[in-house]
């Protein structure tokens, strides 16, 4: 993602009192704009923390949005003089980076994780700061998919348009752009329905459709010759491969394909040690993809277990948040990929 920072500051929404909630977000301009719109009817304070202009999810996993960001904005905004309480509402997707325990120790403020989506915040505040299950799970609606497809196409076009422009001129770059946008939209919208086991195969399955579409559109411009057709197929294929490669990082369900190779993130294989688990529900709460399930051990003891390891996006939120260190990374414990535990 390309960062787009805005000034870190304190935003006063409505007419907050000394007991109004204090929300925290990052200084990505799009995030701030959407939050302000979602909260336009609320009376609250919004702290825009310095995080390099990157969104909450990428920023917290990528080390841009940290406890230091929050400490900085607490000190510089003077929020301590404006409210009586010391409670922050944090975006849930910052859980991989911000442990509420450490925040309390270092800044004297306690943090509670609010809903994932900005639209849910008004309801969350009305219900006495109580999150429902829907608020803590990532959803990926067709509208989001379309938006991500367009954002992804933009990023790909900025990076790769130069080559078709140099080789084929405007003819090439327009076809390239069209095929990137078409395959990105189809891949995002129908990712689950498309045939093929990998993203690349899925995208290649889409490309004949794109070629056909482009041919139909350009037919009135005067027939079709053999060489332009070959080039068109080539451009479309390249576009499909690029789109497929970028796809996983633009979905909320997969890790960015180069986070490991490029940034050297250690792989995670999460499990919960039964004996250490106190059943505090925090792991289940911060997990954005529904990995955990409650297990009733006996009448007065409920623990959590890793129920859906396939869902795991390796964000590490549960690992950071667990107050008793019952959540462990199996790769770290044994060094080798262990056997999947039987339920």
């Amino acid at each position, binding site marked *: 993602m390309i960062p*787009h920072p805005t000034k870190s500051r304190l935003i006063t929404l409505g007419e907050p009192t000394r007991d109004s909630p204090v929300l925290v977000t990052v200084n990505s301009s799009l995030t701030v704009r959407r939050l302000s719109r979602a909260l336009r009817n609320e009376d609250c304070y919004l702290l825009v923390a310095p995080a390099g202009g990157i969104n909450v999810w990428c920023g917290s996993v990528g080390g841009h949005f940290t406890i230091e960001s929050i400490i*900085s904005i607490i*000190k*510089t*905004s003077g929020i301590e003089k404006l409210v009586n309480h010391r409670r922050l509402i944090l975006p849930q997707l910052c859980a991989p980076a911000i442990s509420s325990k450490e925040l309390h120790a270092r800044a004297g403020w306690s943090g509670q994780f609010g809903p994932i989506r900005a639209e849910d915040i008004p309801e969350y505040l009305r219900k006495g700061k109580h999150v429902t299950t829907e608020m803590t799970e990532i959803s990926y609606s067709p509208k989001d998919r379309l938006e991500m497809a367009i954002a992804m196409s933009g990023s790909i076009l900025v*990076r790769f348009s130069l080559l078709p422009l140099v080789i084929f001129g405007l003819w090439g770059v327009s076809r390239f752009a069209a095929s990137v946008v078409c395959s990105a939209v189809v891949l995002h919208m129908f990712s689950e329905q498309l045939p093929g086991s990998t993203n690349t195969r899925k995208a290649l399955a889409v490309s004949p459709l794109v070629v056909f579409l482009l041919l139909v559109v350009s037919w009135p411009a005067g027939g079709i010759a053999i060489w332009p057709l070959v080039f068109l197929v080539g451009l479309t294929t390249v576009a499909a491969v690029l789109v497929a490669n970028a796809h996983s990082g633009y979905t909320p369900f997969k890790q960015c394909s180069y986070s490991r*190779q*490029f*940034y*050297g993130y250690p792989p995670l294989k999460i499990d919960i040690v039964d004996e250490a688990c106190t059943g505090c529900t925090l792991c289940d709460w911060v997990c954005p993809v529904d990995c955990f399930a409650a297990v009733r051990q006996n009448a007065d003891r409920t623990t959590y277990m890793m129920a859906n390891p396939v869902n795991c996006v390796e964000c590490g939120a549960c690992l950071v948040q667990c107050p008793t260190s019952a959540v462990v990374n199996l790769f770290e414990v044994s060094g080798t990929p262990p056997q999947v535990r039987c339920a």
Partner: protein
Amino acid sequence: MKAFECVPARYDLGVRLITLGEIDELRRGLAMEVPVNARVLDVGCGTGALLPLLAERGVRITAIDKSPEMVAKARERAAEEGILDSVCIKRSTAMEIDRLFPDGEFDAVVLSLVMTELTNDEQAWVLNQCARILKPKGSLLIADEFKPPRLLNRLAFEIFRFPLHLIAYLYTQIKGLVTSNIWWRIYYTFVELPLMLLSFFVGEPLTAPLHEPETFLPATLRIAGAKHFWGGAIRLLKIQKVDLE
């Protein structure tokens, strides 16, 4: 430059690059300004290059840095120099000094290449805190990048600074290209490198140089002396805490 902060191996070279080799002179000058046998706080100690120079003057040093890697590196260096008994290195950001130190704790506070890493609001906050933790007549030492005062110097500064920082930035970011897999390496070079360049232009890895010091100093701090390098692009400021009464 923000990009260096967490990569100790690249930090020293990166800093040398953006100060055009003046960093040693700057650090020596800094150490000379510190009173003998004083209590000193080094905010943002980095790899701890300043610590041996300060220890030579017989001062007791408290050093803080926000990155755990840097703190480890600074401790290593202090151990190598055998100055561990006069140095205390903690992991903390500049924004936490209000909780760490009481009023009038230090004879001198050193902000070496720290101010430009902070936002304007943070700068104001940190300077106020420095004024608080300094003893009366204590001195605050700032070594950092400034906008040169003269027009010609400023022009040269604007022209050379950008490519200089770009090179330093790419150098620190390029560590991702070091992988054994040839295909990944090709991919990084042709795909990710252009993206890095793009985010350099769009994002904010490039820190803004400081303006004339009078514009950001709180009322209790007065400039007591300045040393200019490269026509004022890099300066060492000695600032004194004054009593307003």
